[in-house]
């Protein structure tokens, strides 16, 4: 609500500053909305992909963190700590600068556009955070569950697959959704490396319009898009947490 009020206010102030013969700020926003929507769709696509890749890799890394073999555990720990404590932007830069612009698989050349490389850059911290979620969830399962499975002659892998991990899914879902919301608001980082997502496009719009009074309302408009997308996720996370606490 507050956000909407500020948006309206900024539009009003902007209108007042503008001369009588320029098109209104609202009309300008409306005009560029399809383009911004296109950019925002890329943000969402990047967040989906980064989350999917990061989750799959993170599950594997998380299992590495609880492996019985010490070298596997140690290696997984180093990887997790490295990517969890590195700034996202730095990881993004490295991915964009170090990855080639295309890869050759057999005879076919697969181009690697900036958004794909940025997605990879975002997937790395997701991976490390998911790994920590997995480790924490597994350790929160009572020891009696392991003992009971062992006494029934289940192997360690069977115990994980049939007993431990299914119980972890429930515990991991709220923090995992939380992480997703963070990834979504992290996607505009890709604007710095020139990906045509919503943030970049907003900048392009502003420079082509060349009107300073547009600056605040346009960025607020963009912010509203992200807020409208992420806020329900945050609410759903809280609701889920509450439901799981009851049962």
């Amino acid at each position, binding site marked *: 609500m507050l956000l909407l009020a500020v948006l309206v206010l900024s539009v009003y102030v902007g209108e007042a500053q503008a001369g009588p013969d320029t098109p209104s700020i609202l009309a300008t926003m409306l005009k560029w909305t399809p383009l911004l929507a296109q950019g925002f769709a890329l943000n969402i696509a990047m967040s989906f992909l980064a989350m999917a890749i990061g989750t799959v890799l993170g599950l594997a890394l998380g299992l590495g963190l609880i492996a019985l073999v010490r070298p596997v555990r140690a290696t997984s720990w180093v990887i997790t700590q490295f990517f969890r404590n590195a700034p996202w932007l730095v990881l993004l830069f490295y991915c964009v600068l170090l990855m080639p612009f295309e890869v050759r698989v057999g005879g076919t050349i697969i181009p690697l556009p900036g958004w794909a490389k940025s997605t990879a850059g975002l997937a790395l911290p997701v991976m490390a955070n998911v790994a920590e979620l997995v480790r924490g969830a597994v350790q929160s399962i009572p020891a009696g569950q392991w*003992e009971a499975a*062992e*006494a*029934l002659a289940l192997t360690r892998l069977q115990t994980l697959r049939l*007993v431990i991990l299914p119980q972890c899914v429930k515990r991991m879902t709220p923090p995992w959704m939380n992480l997703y919301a963070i990834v979504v608001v992290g996607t505009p980082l890709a604007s710095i490396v020139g990906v045509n997502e919503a943030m970049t496009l907003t900048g392009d719009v502003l420079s082509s319009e060349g009107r300073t009074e547009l600056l605040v309302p346009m960025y607020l408009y963009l912010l509203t898009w992200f807020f409208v997308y992420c806020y329900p996720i945050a609410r759903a996370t809280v609701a889920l947490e509450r439901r799981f606490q009851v049962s």
Partner: protein
Amino acid sequence: MIPAWTAEQPLIRMRDVHKRFGATVVISGISIDVMKGEVICIIGPSGAGKSTLLRCINALVPIDSGSILVAGQEVNDPKLDKLALRRKVGMVFQQYNLFPHRTALANIMMAPLHVLKRDRGEVEAEARALMRKVRLEGKENSYPGELSGGQQQRVAIARSLAMQPAAMLFDEVTAALDPETVKEVLVTIRELAEEGMTCVIVTHEMGFAREVADQVYFTDRGVVVEHGPPAEFFTNCKDERTRRFLSQIL
């Protein structure tokens, strides 16, 4: 080669078992024989190593020295096939430890399906029969959280029985239960005992031990203080420590 086990030999044979956790000695030289079809009850004060001893029998806890033979298989052997051992010995825990995300029936079916790789139809028929046996017909699709403690514990017993073990270990299985549900669990165990199941029972229920046991062992500070058939043990115990324990608890 493992020497062939014959029914004249004890099904479980413990000799001079020692176990310590760090500096704490939990078991210091326990020897117990359990014949096939025999029911033994182990009683004693908390911290006497009773639960640890049970966990040593199915190799949940490794022993430091001594020997435990289960149907001729040495548990204290680095080459031990733990899974093979655990298929022979079922265990029921104080906290039931049912898998909360699976129904009662699925809890019972899990090990036969995935460990023994048996046919699902057969396993399900047996699991339903086991639910009837522990008097829980109609609760097949209930989740553990929807069952009372006594009902959960009976599902846990059925879950162990589904592996068709040669012996069953019961670790204070009524200690966490409400008084009114203790009886239904004890009835189930007594029926098993009467059917000839070999049972090693750690319990605080003296009346039950007296009624069901062939042999009662009193342990304290990691050793067996005294043992004997229940009639003799409860009326005519010789050791001062046993007498003091029984006078406190009865």
